[in-house]
């Protein structure tokens, strides 16, 4: 009976501990996230002060984070209403962007890979995108070809949009981000 009790304790310990680590390193990049609308960034993970959770997450995924002095990456996995981004819908990213020397918006599938398409279009950059008259941009992520700034999603059920701001002013990562203007993310025409 005593052996059983000890074994049970160890089993619970190992399972809950490793499970928690698995879960924590698969989702997010540690503490200190800033969230603006649908977009989340982890400015601290791009510095030498990255916390152990951020280090573990990057070691596991193999990703090298953007150094905060270079820029900052905002990730959207949901729309403004909190629904997961679905590549079968039309996902409309619209609005003004925070100031930066240049930016890119890239769409990935649920596993962080680019999405195959005949046009070989995986991203828009501030140099290529067609701007609206009011300095806003509108980029539509959709399964079918369309006019304007279109990023193909190949109809994947889970997609992720990443907005990278290069040489952005330091304030955007250090403050709570209330002042930063980020584009809205809306889904329409879902099947």
């Amino acid at each position, binding site marked *: 009976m005593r052996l059983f009790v000890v074994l049970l304790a160890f089993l619970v310990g190992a399972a809950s501990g490793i499970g928690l680590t698995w879960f924590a390193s698969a989702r997010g990049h540690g503490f200190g996230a800033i969230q603006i609308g649908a977009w989340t960034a982890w400015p601290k993970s791009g510095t030498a002060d990255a916390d*152990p959770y951020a280090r573990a997450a990057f070691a596991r995924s193999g990703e090298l984070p953007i150094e905060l002095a270079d820029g900052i990456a905002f990730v959207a996995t949901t729309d403004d209403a909190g629904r997961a981004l679905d590549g079968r819908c039309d996902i409309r990213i619209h609005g003004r962007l925070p100031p930066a*020397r240049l930016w890119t918006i890239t769409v990935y599938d649920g596993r962080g890979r680019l999405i195959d398409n005949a046009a070989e279009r995986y991203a828009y950059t501030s140099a290529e995108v067609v701007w609206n008259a009011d300095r806003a941009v509108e980029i539509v992520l959709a399964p079918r070809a369309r006019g304007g700034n279109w990023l193909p999603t190949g109809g994947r059920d889970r997609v992720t949009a990443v907005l990278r701001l290069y040489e952005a002013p330091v304030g955007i990562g250090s403050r709570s981000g209330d002042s930063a203007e980020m584009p809205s993310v809306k889904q329409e025409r879902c099947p």
Partner: protein
Amino acid sequence: MRPYMLPALIGLVLGGLVHLVSVMALPRLALDDAHARLSQLGPMNRVSVIPDPTPFTATLPRMDPAFATAVCLYDLAGGALRVRVPTTPDYFSISFYTRHGLPYYAISDRAAGRRTVELDLMTAAQRAALPEDEEITAADRLIVESPSEEGIVLIRAFVRERGEREAVLARLSQAYCGSAG
């Protein structure tokens, strides 16, 4: 008290410890981290151009396809290294990471300013061992102090138009990473 309560409670406390230890240990245990992936591209202390990511192959996850990228995995055990990178017409940056992918320094084209960025990469001990007269002439020399003997230098250059990609990649392939001299 029920017979399962105590082992369950002890188990959860143990679980917390296992969790903390495994999170701390993960960077050392991860088999497929950035360093392991990049080491397949070429030898240490040499610049390798990272193939552009495609939907089917990507050296690292979530790379920015708008950039051309090159890497130098370094080991300072044999002495300080020189890193020389020709600038490209547009935004580019050189970022430094430890062996386990922790970023510790970055310099962009604006901070560098010249046609070629040249810097010396060394550990704190190697820097302390520099002869004093060299330390004086080092005023116009860019020295980057690596917190670890091994690490990663990532060179990323923005490609403004698709047609420029080949030219930017050609510039990056001229980058040098190796013994100073």
